[in-house]
C-alpha cells in the first residue's frame, strides 16, 4: 500500500528534510504538476485558462496574506493596498524607465515589502482587532496617496498602461501564454512558502502567533520577526499586484480597493488559516464558486423562468448561494477547507482497517 507511512525509513538527512517524505505525496504532487502545467493548458479553451489565470493571481496573494495572518497571527486589512504599491511601482518603472518586467516584478515586490513593514510597525504594540484597524488605516492612506499624488498615479485618472511582458522574442499576451507565465510564479510562491514556514523564520512566526511573550522569552526578536512577517507578506502582495498589472496591461486605482483586501481575507479564512494548501484551496473556492454557480444556473434557469427574469435572478441568487455555501463550509469545518481535506485524508490513511 503506497499510502502507508510505515516502512518509510529516513536514512539520510536529505530524506528527512524532503518536502514530501511519503511516496504517495510525491506522486500526487507530480501528477498534479503534470495536469496543471501540461495537460490543462494544452487541452482547455482559452476561456477556462483565463479563469485559471485569475485563480493563479489569487493564489499568490492568498499565500502572502496567510504568512501574515495564518502563520504570524497578525491581522491585516491592507493587502489590496500593498498590491497597489507593487503595481504602481512596476508600472512607473515600465513606463518611465522602460525597464524589463523581471526588474519591475522584483522592484514592485520590494517596494511593497518596504511599505508593508512601515504599515506593520503598529503591530509591535497592538494586536488583534486593533491591529486590523491600524492596517485598515494603512489601506486608506495608500489609496488616498495613489488617488492624489499624480507623480505616483501617472495622472488624475490614476491608471498607467504597461506593455505586455516579453520572454526573449515572444510577447506574452494570450491567456494561454499568461497561464504558463503566472503558473511559474505560483509554483515558485508555493515552494518558497513551503520552505519558509519550516525554516527558522517560519518557526519564529508560528511561535509569535501562538504566544508572543513566550516567544520573546525563548529568544525570538519580536520586533524583527513581526516586521519581517509584514515585509514578506507584502512582498507577495506586491508581486501579485505586478502580475495583475501585467495580466491586464494596466495598473488602475480601482483594482486594489478595500473590497479586494476583504476578498483575500475571505480566501484564507475559508481555505484555512496557517496552511499553504488552504490558501490555494481558498483562492480556488472564492474565484471559481461564483462562476460555477452562474454556469449551472444558466443551464437550468431557462427551464423555470423567462430570459429577462433569469438575467435579474442569476446575479442575486448567486450572491445568496455564495454566502450560504461559505457559511455551510465554515459550519461543517470551522478550520477551513484544508482541515476538511485533512479529515478525508486521515480517514483513508487507515482505510480499510479502521479501529
Amino acid at each position, binding site marked *: 500500500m503506497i499510502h502507508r507511512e510505515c516502512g518509510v525509513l529516513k536514512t539520510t538527512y536529505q530524506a528527512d528534510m524532503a518536502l514530501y517524505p511519503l511516496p504517495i505525496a510525491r506522486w500526487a504532487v507530480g501528477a498534479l504538476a503534470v495536469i496543471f502545467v501540461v495537460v490543462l493548458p494544452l487541452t482547455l479553451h482559452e*476561456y477556462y485558462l483565463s479563469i485559471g489565470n485569475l485563480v493563479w493571481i489569487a493564489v499568490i496573494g492568498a499565500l502572502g496574506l496567510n504568512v501574515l495572518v495564518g502563520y504570524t497571527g497578525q491581522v491585516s486589512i491592507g493587502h489590496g493596498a500593498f498590491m497597489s504599491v507593487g503595481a504602481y511601482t512596476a508600472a512607473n518603472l515600465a513606463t518611465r524607465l522602460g525597464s524589463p518586467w523581471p526588474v519591475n516584478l522584483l522592484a514592485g515586490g520590494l517596494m511593497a515589502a518596504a511599505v508593508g513593514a512601515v504599515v506593520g510597525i503598529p503591530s509591535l504594540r497592538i494586536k488583534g482587532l486593533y491591529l486590523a484597524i491600524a492596517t485598515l488605516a494603512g489601506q486608506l492612506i495608500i489609496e488616498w496617496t495613489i488617488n492624489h499624488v499624480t507623480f505616483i498615479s501617472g495622472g*488624475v485618472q490614476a491608471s498607467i498602461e504597461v506593455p505586455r511582458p516579453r520572454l526573449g522574442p515572444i510577447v506574452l499576451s494570450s491567456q494561454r501564454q499568461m497561464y504558463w507565465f503566472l503558473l511559474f510564479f505560483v509554483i515558485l510562491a508555493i515552494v518558497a512558502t513551503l520552505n519558509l514556514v519550516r525554516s527558522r523564520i517560519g518557526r519564529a512566526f508560528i511561535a509569535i502567533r501562538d504566544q508572543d511573550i513566550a516567544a520573546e522569552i525563548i529568544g525570538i526578536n519580536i520586533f524583527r520577526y513581526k516586521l519581517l512577517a509584514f515585509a514578506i507578506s507584502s512582498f507577495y502582495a506586491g508581486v501579485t499586484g505586478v502580475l495583475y498589472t501585467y495580466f491586464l*496591461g494596466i495598473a488602475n486605482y480601482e483594482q486594489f480597493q478595500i473590497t479586494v483586501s476583504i476578498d483575500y481575507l475571505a480566501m484564507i479564512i475559508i481555505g484555512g488559516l496557517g496552511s499553504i494548501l488552504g490558501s490555494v484551496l481558498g483562492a480556488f473556492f472564492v*474565484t471559481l464558486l461564483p462562476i460555477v454557480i452562474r454556469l449551472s444556473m444558466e443551464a437550468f434557469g431557462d427551464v423555470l423562468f423567462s430570459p429577462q427574469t433569469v438575467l435579474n435572478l442569476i446575479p*442575486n441568487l448567486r450572491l445568496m448561494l455564495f454566502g450560504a455555501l461559505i457559511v455551510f463550509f465554515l459550519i461543517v469545518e470551522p478550520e477551513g477547507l484544508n482541515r476538511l481535506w485533512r479529515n478525508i485524508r486521515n480517514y483513508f490513511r487507515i482505510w480499510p482497517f479502521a479501529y
Partner: protein
Amino acid sequence: MRRFLAIVAVLTLLTGGLLATGPTQAQQYKGEIVLGAQCDRTGATQIVGTILCPGFHDYIALVNSKGGVEGYKIKALEIDHEYKVPPAVESYERHKKEGAVSMSVYGTPQIYALAAKLTEDRIPGTSPGFGSAAAADGTRYPYIFPIAATYWSQGAAAVDFAKKQLGGSLKGKKIAYIFYDNPAGREPIDVLQDLAKLEGFTMKEFAVPPPGVEMGAQVLDIAQRFRADYVIAHLFGGAPAVSIKELKRVGYPLKKVVSFVWGSAEANIDAAGGFPAAEGYHTMQFAGVGQDYPVLKEIRDMYQKQGKPAPKEMASTVFYNRGVLVAALHVEAIRNALKAKPDGKITGQDVKNGFEKISNFTLGGLVPPLKITATDHEGGGLVQIWQVKGGKFEKETDWYSAYTDVVAKHIKAAAAK
C-alpha cells in the same frame, strides 16, 4: 419529507413546462450575431445596472421581434460582474468564446482592465458615460468607444450652461466644483481649470471623500464662505441625493446647480426626497429623458403583443433610456457591418468600422445626433440639460457640446503621453 420533496419536484417540472412552452418565435433568421454585455445588478452601482440592463435587453428583443438586423438575430449575452474586475475579465473571455463581435463593457475599472485585451483581440468595446476621457481618441484607442459625452465634454458643457444661466459672461464669477474624490471625479478638473482661465471665473474644488454621504462642510463652504455663483456637481451613487439635501438645508438655490450624468436620474431625485424637494435642479443627460419616444412606444407595444405589462423599469427613464441608447448604438454598428458584409461573417473589426460609420442616428430624439469617426470615438460629446420642474424632468436645451477646442487639446495631450 420524501413526499414533500416529490410534490415540490412535480410542481417545479409543471411550472417549468408551462413557462417553457410560451409563445414560440416563428421567425426565421439568417443567422445569429453575438453581442457581449456586462452589467452590474448586484454591486456598488446596482442603482444604475438594475434599470439600464433591462433597457438594453428590451431594445435587443425589439430588434429581434422585428426580424433582426439585416435578417440576423442579435443574441445579447449578459454577465453580472458586481462591479469587480476579475469577474469582468472572466465575462469578457466567456463572451469572446461564444463568438461576440461587440462588447458592451460596464464600469470604469472594467473598461480600463479590458482595454488592452479588446485592442489585441480586435473587438470593439463601449464605455458610455464612464471610463477614460482620453479614449475619445480613436487613433490612440482604436477599439474603445465612449459613444457618449466623456467627463471632459461634460465639464465643458456644464461651464457653458452656467455661463448662459449667469447672463452670458463668467468674468469675475465664482464656480464651485463639488466632486466624488476618486479618479473619475478628478478627471474633469484640468479642463475646468483651463476654462476658468479662458472665461475669467474663479473655480474652487470641493472633494467629497468616498463613500460620499458626508458633505455638510463642503456644502456649507460653497454656500456661505466661497459664496459660489454656480455649482457643478459630479457625484456618484448615493452622493447626488445627499448633495441635493445638503444644498437645500443651507439654503443654496438648486436652480444654480448642474449635475453631471451620474447624478441625474429619477433614482437620485427620489432619494433626495422626491421631485418637489429637488425643484430647480439641473441635470445633464447623454440620452433622452421621458417616455415620449417612438422606440419606447414600440417596446411597450411589443410587451402588449405578448400579453405582458410594460416592465416597471421603464418608469425610471434616465437609466432605462441609456440602456436603450447603448443597445441601439451596438445594433447600429452591427447593421453597418452587415451592410458592408452581407454574408454575415462579421468580425470585431467589421463592427468597429460599423461604429465609425454611425452618423445622425437619433432614434427619434432619444439618441443624440452622434457622428462617430475613426478619430472621434466620442461622437461629438453631445448632452442635453433637463431641469427638475413641476414633478418631472423638463428639457432646457437641445443637444449641444461646448468648448470642443479645449477638450480636443486635452485629448491630444493625453494621446501624446
